[in-house]
């Protein structure tokens, strides 16, 4: 399904497509890019996009964004995900960047924004804590003012790719007496500061994506506070609202469905009754994608006309993650007995895996995708948001 594009936008789409084809690093085409690439490899595409000026579609031109319309941003998103390129680190580009140029002071903009664009700084997100998952407003990590520093103590968890990070943006409690939402500040912390410890959390797929981050008497200069003290909740909410349509993951789901079709064709003969069942299951999930994509295009068209889509992000998050979980399940089922095998981490070509290459990451993907309905606000929370904000319940 395509947006109706003006000739200029269609030419832009062709340009993006050609650019990806000519420039996407072959080195990044590994079986499972999310877990198999080194930090340096992950940054290859980031640097190429930065060189082209396309690294931060969301950002205004004055800060280094390309100055695209909503339609063009969407085209770019569509083309890059359809082509299976690895998206630039969201914590840097989509999350903290916009907070800094919207609420930060000039010194902060000057210090941080260029280094985000170039890929010199790698950011991670210090939001969740052991006691604060869905209920983020109860964060307990404390920041106490001491001269021109804050002294920070606390424990952040589920911190994605913190093992690579140079900086962490944190929600910290600066006013313990205030109501939960009102005593929170938004603080930028150098990961090299004394007192910052990163501990890996291994997940059920065997990979290391997330971490615990312990902060013990970490001294953070007051100039690293974003905006006003105790206004952090506002900035945090702004950040979460920035994801919008990318949550639907249409490009990724479409690619995985194409792959699934090939696997089914190779694995299950047409005269096997299981074949028909797979054909039907695949058609169902394709229709799920089609319905979501149509909704996404409708929302994009509305946004292009200046209409705020409200909590559309919640709808996209719920359906996008459910669809992708379903696809990874079907893929795991399609490879039959080979689905018993799982690659060992760290991944090495020397370790034996049974069956054709296309099945080698199916178990991991299946297990790993269970996280999708949990993180970024669980799907239960997203349904609460729609119930309250849309249905008025």
């Amino acid at each position, binding site marked *: 399904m395509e947006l109706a594009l003006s000739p200029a936008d269609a030419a832009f789409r062709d340009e993006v497509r050609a650019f990806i084809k000519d420039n996407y690093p072959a080195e990044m085409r590994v079986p499972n890019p999310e877990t198999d690439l080194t930090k340096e490899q992950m940054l290859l595409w980031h640097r190429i996009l930065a060189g082209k000026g396309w690294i931060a579609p969301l950002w205004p031109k004055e800060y280094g964004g390309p100055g695209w319309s909503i339609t063009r941003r969407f085209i770019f998103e569509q083309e890059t995900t359809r082509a299976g390129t690895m998206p630039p680190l969201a914590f840097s580009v989509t999350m903290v960047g916009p907070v800094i140029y919207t609420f930060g002071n000039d010194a902060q903009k000057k210090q941080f924004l260029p280094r985000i664009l170039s890929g010199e700084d790698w950011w991670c997100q210090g939001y969740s804590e052991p006691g604060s998952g869905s209920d983020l407003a109860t964060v307990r990590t404390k920041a106490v003012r001491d001269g021109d520093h804050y002294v920070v103590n606390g424990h952040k968890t589920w911190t994605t790719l913190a093992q690579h990070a140079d900086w962490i943006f944190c929600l910290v409690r600066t006013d313990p007496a205030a109501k939960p939402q009102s005593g929170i500040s938004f603080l930028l912390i150098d990961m090299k500061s004394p007192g910052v410890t990163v501990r890996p*959390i*291994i*997940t*059920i797929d065997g990979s290391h994506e997330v971490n615990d981050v312990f902060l013990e008497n970490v001294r953070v200069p007051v100039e690293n506070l974003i905006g006003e003290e105790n206004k952090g909740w506002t900035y945090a909410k702004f950040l979460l609202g920035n994801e919008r349509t990318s949550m639907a993951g249409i490009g990724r789901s479409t690619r995985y469905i194409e792959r699934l079709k090939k696997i089914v064709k190779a694995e299950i003969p047409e005269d096997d009754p299981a074949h028909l069942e797979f054909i039907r299951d695949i058609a169902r999930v394709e229709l799920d994608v089609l319905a979501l994509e149509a909704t996404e295009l409708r929302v994009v068209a509305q946004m292009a006309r200046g209409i705020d889509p409200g909590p559309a992000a919640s709808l996209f998050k719920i359906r996008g993650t459910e669809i992708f979980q379903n696809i990874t399940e079907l893929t795991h089922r399609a490879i039959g*007995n080979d*689905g018993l*095998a799982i690659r060992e981490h760290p991944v090495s070509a020397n370790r034996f895996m049974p069956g054709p290459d296309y099945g080698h990451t199916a178990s991991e993907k299946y297990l790993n995708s269970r*996280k999708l309905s*949990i993180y970024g606000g669980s799907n239960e929370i997203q349904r609460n948001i729609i119930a309250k904000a849309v249905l008025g319940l």
Partner: protein
Amino acid sequence: MDIQFTEEQELLRSSVQRLLRYQYEFDARRKAVASEEGFSRRQWAAFAELGLLAAPFGEDAGGLGGGPLSAMIIMQEFGRHLVVEPFVETIVVAGGLLEQFGSGEQKQAFIPDIIAGNKIWTLAWTEQGSRFDLATATTTARREGEDYILTGAKTAVVAAPWADYLIVSARTSGHRHDRGGVSLFVVDRHAANVDLQSFKTIDGRRAAEVTLRGVKGQLLGREGAGVPALEACRDRAIGALCAEMVGAIGELNSATLEYSKTRKQFGVTIGSFQVLQHRMVDMFIAHQEALSLMQHLSLSLDAGEAGLSRLASGAKSRIGYAGKFVADQAVQLHGGMGMTDELNVGHYFKRISSINIQFGDPAYHVLRYAQLDAAA
């Protein structure tokens, strides 16, 4: 239809429970899984000592005569503790085949060592492209004097790296998918010309691709009668795997319920949210139904009832879907913690996922259930 367990059966259950409670905590299991071999021979010896490896065998074969109900009791407890040692493979599957189809000589040669815990066995029937069809076999067995010579490759053979003997299905006549013409053979796993490529399974066990390059095999059962033998064997394996699944479901439900009563968000326990309450009610219902079906199947296995195989497929499918639902929800309700390697919840999820592949997935068995009905 609730099973009234005999004193003997209750004793079996409580002794398994005691053993596992003291020797099979999650950390001990984790260590065994991470070890070089990937399971604990000491644990296997303890099972033998307690008589678990003898329990299902008939008294004629030197067993305790507990039959499928004893396997059910043991496997339900093994499911609760995520036992990785190959009880289903060695005792229920290979042991069952030897007991049912072995010659007097074979029984005498092999079963005592199994019961004593000295030898580990597994069944190698799956091939690349066979999917879940027992009759599909391209591995061949060629008669040579008194012996058969086997050539071919088997895939995803669980417990093969641990095994001393394999029971291998191979074609003695007919074409690739023919039901007739498949025979079973005992193969020494350490024989020259048996090559293993080992790998880890999602549930923390070991499996291997097994290549047979002209290796000697000893016929088990009648030539050409392999498929019916495998079907009977699968029915018993399904009985055991369903019991294991029910054990795992029960543990996931208790863990989730407990967590929902202690985990607080928004100032209240998450168990106070109606949407999660209803979810846990559905998990409870899934457990109750799975438990009932499991008992129904085990009683049918015990009585050797007609229509048993159809029921086995029905149970494998229905309990498989129940397990999948519960596992999905248990991870979901535990949130990020459910995703970690550290907590046992994810390990139950992975074991349930494996059971749902071994001997055929729920989709395969629901179709078989339907087709056997149509045939009746």
